[in-house]
């Protein structure tokens, strides 16, 4: 169930005919590789599969689904699938944006806090200032993009590691958003936003759902899959995608060939900020509450999902589908732990192990890429 609903759709975008350039290592060069290092057809197929960024995540997804499917058979019902996809969708939107940034060789830690603070900003504008929901959403999106621009600008101008820049942005946002909210509203949880003008159309866009069997499938899944498909297309089929891969994999070459490194980096940072805003908005509209508890949205999970999905921390390698599979894997594990009736704390440990395995798999992939004949 999880499979049929979640997997094939994002896969469609990047797969067709064009092999991922990075992973293309094996991507369709049987002839040429055979010339460099003769190998049997079986071995070549193996190479090709191993070189796909999402391979490890697919294997992990199958393993985890089988494991929890046995532990908690409810997982494989429509309700279970809906729960998994719901978790995966919110995470997957953020992981997708973070994954694209990883491919370009940068990290954004502030995305989770952008989600929280844009939800708070929307809540304040609606609840305290009496704005309609749409103007409030537009304003908070503008604010989020501003944060993204600032992050990107600092990174391209100063050359500081994006890890530190966005960590600083995370802290500043966390303090500012919570303190401002408390100063203005007297609390950090803004409830009862459902009376705002335009709320019904906002619900249609961000919180509608379809019932299928005993599962409620939310529109966030559509957002997630749609964005993943768009990003996959953009990565393999557009100039922007070429630029993203080149910037992450060979920044000097990209500069020398006149690839707009700065503009692309700014775009990607704006992308993560917008994704943060979308995640915050999806949550806000669903529960008609803006909750300033930062522990609700730890940024690191987006990163974890993207890395599990095969995005290399050093850049130049990864895929949109990979981040989706990583998010799905995360969703299955999280929901599976709950359904199996385990202490939810086990999930953390499990996630850590998963991340470690993913990193090791990444490392193997990287040595394989290096091992591709250089001379």
């Amino acid at each position, binding site marked *: 169930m999880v499979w049929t609903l979640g997997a094939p759709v994002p896969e469609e975008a990047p797969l067709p005919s*064009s*092999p991922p*350039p*990075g992973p*293309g*290592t094996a*991507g*369709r*060069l049987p*002839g*040429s*590789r055979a*010339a*460099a290092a003769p190998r049997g057809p079986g071995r070549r197929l193996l190479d090709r599969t191993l070189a796909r960024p999402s391979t490890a995540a697919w294997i992990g997804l199958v393993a985890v689904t089988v494991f929890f499917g046995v532990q908690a058979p409810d997982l494989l019902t429509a309700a279970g699938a809906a729960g998994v996809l719901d978790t995966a969708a919110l995470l997957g939107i953020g992981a997708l944006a973070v994954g694209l940034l990883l491919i370009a060789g940068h990290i954004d830690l502030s995305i989770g806090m952008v989600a929280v603070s844009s939800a708070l900003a929307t809540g304040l504008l609606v609840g305290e200032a009496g704005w309609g929901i749409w103007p409030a959403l537009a304003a908070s999106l503008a604010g989020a993009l501003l944060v993204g621009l600032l992050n990107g600008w600092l990174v391209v101008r100063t050359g500081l590691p994006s890890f530190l820049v966005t960590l600083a942005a995370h802290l500043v946002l966390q303090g500012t958003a919570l303190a401002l909210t408390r100063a203005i509203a007297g609390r950090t949880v803004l409830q009862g936003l459902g009376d705002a003008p335009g709320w019904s159309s906002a619900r249609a866009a961000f919180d509608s759902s379809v019932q299928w069997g005993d599962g409620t499938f939310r529109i966030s899944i559509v957002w997630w899959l749609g964005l993943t498909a768009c990003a996959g*297309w953009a990565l393999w*089929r*557009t*100039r922007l995608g*070429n*630029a993203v*891969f*080149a910037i992450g*994999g*060979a920044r*000097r*070459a*990209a*500069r*020398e*060939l*006149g*690839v*707009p490194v700065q503009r692309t980096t700014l775009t990607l940072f704006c992308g993560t900020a917008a994704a943060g805003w979308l995640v915050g908005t999806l949550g806000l509209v669903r529960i008609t509450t803006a909750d300033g508890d930062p522990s609700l949205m730890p940024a690191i999970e987006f990163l974890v999902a993207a890395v599990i999905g095969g995005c290399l921390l050093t850049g*130049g*390698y990864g895929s949109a589908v990979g981040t989706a599979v990583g998010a799905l894997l995360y969703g299955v594990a999280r929901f599976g732990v709950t359904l199996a009736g385990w202490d939810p704390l086990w999930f953390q440990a499990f996630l850590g192990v998963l991340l470690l395995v993913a990193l090791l798999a990444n490392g193997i992939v990287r040595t394989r*890429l290096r091992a*591709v*004949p*250089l*001379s």
Partner: protein
Amino acid sequence: MTSPDPAPAVLELRRVTVRHGSVAALSRVSAAFAPGTISCVLGENGSGKSTLVSVLSGLTRPEEGELLLDGRPARFRSPRDARGAGVATVWNDLSVAPLLSVWRNFCLGAEPTAGIGPLRRLDRAAARDVTARELAKVGLRGVDPDQPASTLRPGERQSLAIARALHFGSRALVVDEPVAPRSVAGATQAGQALLAARARGLAVVLVTANPRYAHLVGDRFLLLAGGQVAGDLTREDVDADSLTRLMAGDDELSALTETVRQTHPDR
């Protein structure tokens, strides 16, 4: 300053100064690069060769002085602008992104596209075609445009870089000699490409630390030392041995430049 060439210079530097921090990497350098001529820029490490390349290719903007293209001041905001104007560069690292396929590398930064607006996408068929065609022109056959550049041998990478520069550089070709040691075949192939470009009437700028190689292919020799022009010679002025000696020591360099100044007062 500008040597009296029959043809007007394609690329010209006028009193160009570039500083890295407080150090002047180039200090009031003037040079003219004429069409159909191979001009060799020679100098030790740190003499400003790389900075000269990055000024000519649009990566660095001169702080003082100006860059002229066909006699008109040119302001390249990026190497993309320079390539658009027909000035292409072969960088000393060859600018190859190993994880990208050969055709993506070939077109990187100047990809052919189809469609308009948000649906503008890479024209992959055209890109593959042009890649295969241009690679064949420099004698690189049997390379699948879809294979990643990491599978290319060093010589093939150089071919890729040269084919790319020849394709995009319609006016001038700037070649920064690879840092990595090359095979004789590699050097020969690069030399052939330079001569072919000269025959097509391009202004060719070869930046190298190897005087013998420079003398083999070059028509003019611009000597750089400490970010300044230390000599501007033609083939008639020097033989390969004296060019080598010039590279070796500053004293001899200045002595000979003095001699040349006397024999050629217009320099």
